[in-house]
């Protein structure tokens, strides 16, 4: 972690796919350790691309990104797995492993991190119960509804208590009650020290976390010309 408590720092970051126009341009902002952030913007604004940079699925075309205090743009790829294990990701399309049960999907980050089998059963079962899927632990993703798959994806993202949680539309397929529960889960994790960044269109969701800060993205650029974050969020007008 950087000395100033900054967990993510973007400095003039641009991202271009192939030879097309820049998807993200001149992004400069920082997220502080332990913060709760919402990322908003219309469809096609570049939210998912920004998240891909954050969860290390992509390197930027230009600019500097510091994560956990280290420059990850020039970092050798052999060091990236260690950084990825510190990040939890909820993908918009869930990306559950199709031939694994809900239990095995949730257990995946712990197994990757080297947790012994005897030590992972309790937390995995507790996490599945927490997202309301304790009774469906042996079900495969294809047999789960969209909302259930999303809850498995969220359970998988938070099971290893990541330092940074990145979620792309995490409540898009669940009913309002479940959305509230999931947001409460993110909130609890955040209070335990996890930095949370949630990309969402759901303004109602944003208003539920009073201390959350907001980044607004449009056509690949942060709307606030200074790159500073709104705190507290201003609601729909922001």
């Amino acid at each position: 972690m950087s000395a100033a408590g900054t967990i993510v720092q973007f400095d003039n970051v641009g991202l271009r796919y192939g030879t097309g126009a820049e998807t993200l341009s001149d992004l400069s902002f920082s997220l502080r350790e332990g913060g709760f952030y919402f990322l908003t913007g219309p469809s096609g604004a570049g939210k998912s691309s920004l998240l891909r940079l954050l969860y290390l699925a992509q390197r930027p075309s230009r600019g500097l990104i510091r994560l956990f205090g280290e420059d990850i743009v020039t970092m050798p790829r052999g060091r990236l797995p260690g950084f990825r294990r510190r990040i939890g990701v909820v993908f918009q399309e869930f990306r559950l492993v199709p031939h694994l049960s809900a239990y095995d999907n949730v257990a995946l980050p712990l197994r990757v991190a080297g947790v012994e089998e005897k030590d992972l059963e309790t937390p995995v079962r507790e996490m599945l119960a927490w997202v309301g899927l304790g009774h469906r632990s042996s079900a495969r993703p294809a047999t789960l509804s969209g909302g259930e798959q999303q809850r498995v994806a969220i359970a998988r993202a938070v099971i290893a208590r990541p330092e940074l949680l990145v979620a792309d539309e995490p409540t898009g397929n669940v009913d309002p009650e479940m959305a509230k529960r999931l947001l409460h889960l993110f909130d609890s994790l955040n209070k335990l020290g996890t930095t949370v960044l949630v990309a969402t269109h759901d303004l109602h969701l944003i208003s539920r976390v009073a201390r959350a800060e907001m980044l607004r993205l449009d056509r690949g650029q942060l709307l606030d010309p200074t790159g500073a974050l709104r705190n507290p969020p201003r609601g729909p007008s922001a």
Partner: protein
Amino acid sequence: MKAGNRRFGAADRRLLPEGRLAGPMPWVIAIMMFLTVLAAAAGLGLGTAASSLSANVGQRLTVQLVEANPDRREAEAAAAVRKLQGMSGVAEVRRLAPEEMQKLLEPWLGSGGLEADLPIPALIDVDLNPGAPGIETFRSAILAVAPSARVDDSAAWLAPLAKLISALRMLAGALVVLMILASAATVVLAAKAALDTHRNTIEVLHLMGSTDVQVARLFQRRIALDALFGGLLGLIGAGIVLLLIGQRVGALGSELLGSAGLPALSWALLAALPLAGVLLAMVVARFTILRALGRML
């Protein structure tokens, strides 16, 4: 254990779908192993035949005494035997008895017995020790005491056969090498196909912090199991064929073909081929997968 060095355990092996015999790779490996074992067996059998030929016939001289006068022929034969017995490098000297000569000539002269006045050469078989002097040394020594002697080196008339055996052994070796290369290419294609099939799972594992080595081990294990199954199947098939061929050759009663048998060590080498195939498959799969993963972020 440090996560990057951790092997996936039994539960993690499910990260790739079960059903390791899906796809053509085990069957292609089985065919390759079948042909490899047959080619290797041919090479080893020919090697045994070449050694046997060299040991039994190659170290031998034949001395013919073609003097028409029976008394002088007998005198020269006795002198040649004495001379040979006294020379270094000679293991055994044996003059063929008249009955053996009659048996040798029977195909041409019939079984009615030899005419008394028919001049039959005297034959002397000489077995040499390894490292014996060259044929010229023996020829000059024998001619000094038996001017009508003709000295034949068995190795000379065996040379074309030895060359043929050597060429066939090289061909068998080349076939084995080609089979190994084809098997390696099969593994490369299978590994690439597996990577494409499971790309989504691999990406998810990567994004959760799996190292390339962790992911490669999953594929290595799966490909090793396929190679082991195919290898054993090919070995069993080839073993059955070799046993049947051995029985047929044994029924022929040919000394030359019979000498091309497989000793226990050769069978052990053939049995080790599937294990070598598994090792090759694991190394090739690991290299292919790590190379492909290296192109991902």
